[in-house]
């Protein structure tokens, strides 16, 4: 097993290399530079700034210099946050997104799997349609709708949660991460619920379940022990990238609740043409993707004993 994992981790290097190379050249081709503004600085000033950040050198030279720095884990200075390096930006923003994302993940998993199992056990009955319809709300109310609604209800009406900000605010009972996490979690719960239900129904119609039933294995045991294992396969496949996405933050939710997480850096760095920050966040996200897809593959293998042959 160790060998397999180490092998997968080693694949990170070429994968990251390709991601960084593609992103590097794509972001340079995109029109607009980091220093353009509504009030145009003179071409002279722009030239000076480009020279300061080494953007006046040939592209391949910039690329090689960049790779050289990346190998030493130096992702360069951010242009947007003038006194911070990319590493510092990620180091301060990621913990916040990690907290929100992990909580959201737990919420999504608990609600989603429960709803899915209940629905699968009561196929085409009231207790199928009810939890499934409820879970659909998570999709019908996308984060940019649900977020403001939750902020209004829990922040302004009930005064339980802060409507904006991260630090401090201990005069309201809820921690600032709760509302963003709920908003995100409900959205993913809908996916998990539907995938769980579908996966379980696939298993429940298989022969070995029939056999087990015939042998008199109790229903709940069939459901939770046998069906759930296989039924979670599609969920787990979905969860790898979903978890990576959750803990790297969401632009919309961070803007709605004004949380200083990492999600906004992905989007804002592109809008600002902050090349080092674009590359830094993309490399970071790429690593998370590869890691959690590996975890997801391992969990899939664990759930499905047959694939381990």
């Amino acid at each position, binding site marked *: 097993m160790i060998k397999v994992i180490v092998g997968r981790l080693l694949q990170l290097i070429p994968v990251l290399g390709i991601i960084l190379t593609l992103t590097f050249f794509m972001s340079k081709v995109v029109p607009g530079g980091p220093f353009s503004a509504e009030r145009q600085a003179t071409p002279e000033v722009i030239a000076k700034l480009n020279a300061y950040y080494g953007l006046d050198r040939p592209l391949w030279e910039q690329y090689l210099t960049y790779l050289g720095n990346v190998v030493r884990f130096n992702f360069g200075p951010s242009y947007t946050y003038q006194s911070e390096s990319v590493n510092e930006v990620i180091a301060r923003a990621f913990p916040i997104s990690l907290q929100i994302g992990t909580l959201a993940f737990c919420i999504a998993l608990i609600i989603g799997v429960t709803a899915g199992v209940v629905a699968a056990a009561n196929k085409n009955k009231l207790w199928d349609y009810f939890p499934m319809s409820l879970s659909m709300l998570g999709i019908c109310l996308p984060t940019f709708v649900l977020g403001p609604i939750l902020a209004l209800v829990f922040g302004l009406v009930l005064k339980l949660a802060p409507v904006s900000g991260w630090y401090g605010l201990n005069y309201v009972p809820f921690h600032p991460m709760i509302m963003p996490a709920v908003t995100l979690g409900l959205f993913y719960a809908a996916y998990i619920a539907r995938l769980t239900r579908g996966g379980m129904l696939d298993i429940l119609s298989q022969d070995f379940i029939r056999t087990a039933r015939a*042998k008199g294995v109790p229903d709940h045991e069939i459901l939770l022990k046998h069906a759930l294992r296989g039924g979670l396969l599609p969920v787990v496949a*979905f969860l790898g990238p979903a978890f990576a996405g959750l803990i790297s933050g969401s632009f919309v939710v961070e803007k709605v609740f004004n949380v200083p997480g990492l999600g906004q850096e992905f989007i804002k760095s592109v809008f600002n043409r902050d090349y080092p920050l674009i590359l830094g966040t993309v490399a970071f996200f790429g690593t998370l993707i590869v890691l959690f897809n590996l975890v997801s593959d391992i969990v899939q293998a664990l759930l499905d004993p047959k694939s381990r042959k």
Partner: protein
Amino acid sequence: MATGTASIEPAPIRADELVQGTSLWKDAWFRLRKNHVALFGLYTFCTIALLCLVVPFFTGYTYEQTEISLKASAPMEPIFLRTEARKAGEPKKSFIALSNLEDEFLEKSQSDRKAIVAKIAEGEVYQEGRNTYQRSSQRHVFGTDPLGRDLLTRVLVGGRISLAVGFAATLVSVCIGVLWGATAGFAGGKIDTVMMRFADILYALPFTVIVILLMVMFGRNFILLFVAIGAVEWLNMARIVRGQIISLKNQEFIEAAISLGLPSHRILFRHLIPNVIGSIIIYATLTVPNVMLLEAVLSFLGLGVQPPLSSWGVLIDEGSRTMETSIWLLVCPAIFFSLTLFCLNFLGDGLRDALDPKASKD
């Protein structure tokens, strides 16, 4: 975990035999017809699509016709006509909603204002300076947006865009995703590794950059829109299908098929993919709303629909920002959007059941 199956009755082989005629589909349709919820979903969905196609021609308004003095008027709010005499040329006509009528007489005292508005509301023609006010028979069933455009027409016309984008992009992503995932999962080994790492790379690439690049290189183009959306949406599908295929390919009936020497593509298309059709349908129905909302993001970046045209995603996004003052701007598109999703999901569940090769034994 032992499966404990004494009697292996590989259902897909049965399905395989049925493929001779159209009976698999006939069979499925037969089963679907017995599922009332799914049928209800199907009919409602067709109704929505038909409404979007036909009704905009009969609302009496166009999606672009602004009436800015009307502003955001509530559904069925009474509307008044203001005729302003001009020194030269035709008098200028504009419409005002009841809630804004008082603002026309701001220089008067509050009680006077109320009295005037009440009079006009009762049908009286009222003159004030160069302006004449009278009741209008005009009505907007869903109200109007901040520029005074008929919301019903805008929602329905937007629905055409959203439905087209939703289905086309989903189709693209399903095709790529299923083929990619199934091939990777079935082939395994190095091919699997390379294919899945390729998906990881696509996952990590910054979507915004890609979209801006596409727009700059090819201009605004609806086909591109599908490509852009399809290019990101198939990744999850591929992962899900791959996971299922890996689990299936070690099952007895596939091992049997392999040992019989059936060609790989036949095993893949006849035996493996039909067995994961449930997950495919479910994830596809989840992709549709995702794509519709993603379209709003693309519009923000300049690749999606261009104003004054709109789509459900864009309308919901705009509506969410004004939900405290004019909730109907959010509710109306959201109802159509949600209804479509519910229908699709019920229909998807029904289809899943109907197409499940094992289900016929129940």
